């Protein structure tokens, strides 16, 4: 019996429409609460939402911008989804993303202008995965070997990665830094050779960045991996019942390390994709400000850790982010993107509970309960 006058009772069966209704309802609830926040602070919620919708999806070229914003979220979302699935709370997507960006841009610069585009792009994908994967391995190995809390270690590594990127551009004469021209005065990264810029696939009215297509393919591959393979089965057992996994002869530590590396590699490809598709330069400040790693956790949670759903959620949140960039200015409230993302997450978390449980009024004694039933 709860003090708050109601209690949660597990539902005996889940209606078919419920898994769909919960995200949609939660999203609408978040918009409603967001509108109250906007209204309370003297903003016209309808006009703000209208402008977001317009600049995210409807206006000329907006959807392409949304897909560009969605690409890093797609990868960091997959990064979190895969790791959280086995109960490995990797919140280091941010740092793994940055390491992927460092490795990816490094190889593109190394290969230089003479390398064929396809070689450069492929090398960026591989090196991005390696950079992020190595960074993801650290908390994985520490967790498996010393049982060190992966939440804190992966988080700390985010800051270390940010520091490394800053060091390469602002605090040293590294290979990544432009030392000629205006770069001699203002620290900045070398621009990648145009041959290594990732292609855009033109579908008439919308242009889809190659990174997004790659992300979709990887999402589908992950779905199959988790559902149809032995490794995916072991992942699910380790995530759901670690003790059972051990009794069944699986090696949870080994799976944790493998998934940590996979998770980091996904974020790392995202970092390479962000540079290849969009920035074309190692830009520590820009990477830090965008906070893709943390937003990826929102994406994964909203997608209920399902890799295919991650694609759709990434597009949705990418739309809000893209509109946030496009509308940034004196008449658009800053910080609104985070507020909306947070609200959507809060409402979804709450909404899922309401879906899984029934709220019943708490009843003081069993006698009253039977009296109510007979009434």
């Amino acid at each position, binding site marked *: 019996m*709860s*003090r*708050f006058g109601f209690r*949660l009772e597990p539902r005996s069966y889940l209606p078919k429409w419920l898994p769909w209704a919960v995200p949609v309802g939660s999203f609408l609830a978040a918009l409603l609460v967001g509108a109250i*926040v906007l209204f309370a*602070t*003297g903003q016209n919620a309808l006009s703000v939402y209208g402008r977001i919708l317009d600049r995210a999806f409807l206006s000329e070229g907006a959807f392409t911008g949304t897909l560009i914003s969605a690409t890093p979220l797609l990868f960091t979302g997959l990064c979190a989804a895969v790791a959280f699935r086995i109960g490995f*709370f990797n*919140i280091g997507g941010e740092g793994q993303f940055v390491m992927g960006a460092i490795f990816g841009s490094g190889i593109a610069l190394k290969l230089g202008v003479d390398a064929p585009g396809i070689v450069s792009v492929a090398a960026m994908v591989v090196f991005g995965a390696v950079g992020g994967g190595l960074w993801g391995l650290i908390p994985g190995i*520490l967790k498996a070997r*010393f*049982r*060190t*809390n992966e*939440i*804190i*270690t992966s*988080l*700390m*590594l985010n*800051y*270390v990665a940010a*520091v*490394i990127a*800053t*060091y390469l551009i*602002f*605090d*040293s004469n590294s290979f990544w830094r432009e030392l000629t021209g205006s770069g001699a005065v203002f620290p900045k990264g070398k621009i990648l050779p145009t041959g290594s810029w990732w292609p855009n696939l033109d579908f008439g009215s919308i242009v889809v960045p190659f990174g997004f297509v790659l992300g979709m393919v990887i999402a589908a591959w992950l779905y199959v991996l988790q559902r149809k393979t032995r490794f995916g089965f072991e992942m699910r057992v380790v995530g759901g019942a670690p003790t059972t996994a051990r009794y069944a002869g699986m090696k949870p530590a080994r799976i944790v390390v493998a998934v940590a590396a996979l998770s980091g590699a996904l974020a790392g490809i995202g970092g390479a994709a962000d540079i290849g598709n969009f920035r074309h330069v190692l830009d520590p400040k820009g990477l830090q400000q965008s*906070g893709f790693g*943390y*937003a990826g*956790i*929102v994406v994964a*949670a909203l997608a209920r850790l399902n890799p295919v759903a991650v694609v759709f959620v990434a597009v949705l949140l990418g739309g809000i982010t893209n509109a946030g960039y496009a509308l940034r200015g004196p008449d658009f*409230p*800053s*910080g*609104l*993107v*985070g*507020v909306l*993302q*947070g*609200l959507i*997450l*809060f409402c979804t*978390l*709450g909404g*899922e*509970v309401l879906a899984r449980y029934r709220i019943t009024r708490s009843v003081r004694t069993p006698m009253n309960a039977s009296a109510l039933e007979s009434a």
Partner: protein
Amino acid sequence: MSINDNLFVIIMASAIFYGTPLVFASLGELLAERSGVLNLGVEGMMLLGAVAAAWVSTNVDGPAIVVLPLAIVAAMIAAGLGASIHAFLTITLRVNQIISGLALTIFAGAAGLSSYLAGIWQLGQTPVKQQFGKIDVLGLSGVPVVGPILFHQTLLTYLSWVLVIAASFYLFRTRAGLHLRAVGESPQTADSVGISVSRYRYFHVIFGGSFAGIAGACFSLMIVPTWVDGMTAGQGWIALALVIFGFWRPDLTLLGAYLFGALSSLGLTLQARGIHISTALLSALPYVMTIVVLVIVSNTASRKQLGAPAALGKPYEREER
């Protein structure tokens, strides 16, 4: 050159100055974790506190003795409200504590509500009107070595010392503290002897969260002192690590906070002395050290059970009893 210009004295004094917000934030998190609730929203709550304190200090007219306490209270309320969202989701709705805490940081943090409010209130264009300056306690600031370190700090530092002592006393010497630890160790047992698990958890998550608000106010009223988007710069995450390697004890957590204060101020202090060292790499030291210490602690902690509340991170479902 006086002995108080000694490098050691300067670093120790700034360790305490820069470590003060960490003391507040980790003490608050410690209280929440002792009740069994992990709150990863520290960074977000700190920024809420920072923005609320900056607003009061900028917009409320009056003598400092009125405005500054009011700013601290506002910071505590703002952060406490943030914490109450986390409390409701994790205690009543039993949502995953990790995801809920992260949601709080995203909602309130650097690209969220705190910068939204700061934009609406047009903060950050000027320094705050009233701030916490260093005070000379009993005229002892000139005493060799200990003077600048211990007797020339701001009121917030002295407040943090009072709170650390009070929290230690509360946790280990009072009945309520015993109940709190019971709730964190074994909610079933606590419940069976009539302690309300959810009431204890609500209170300590929200009250602990309000400490994070004071930590934020340390930035906007003492260290910076104005509003800057995302001004806490990840210190909220450090506070989480400090709780772990202070073994969930207020006194050790305070020492850890000062160690970090020393490391993060080392770069600036050395540079001011003309010693050349990459500030970027030096600023990574606290983070690398957290990992190293955590590895050492977690290895021994898993064997000796050094103070981690056994029920930390687990929702309490009474029906399962």
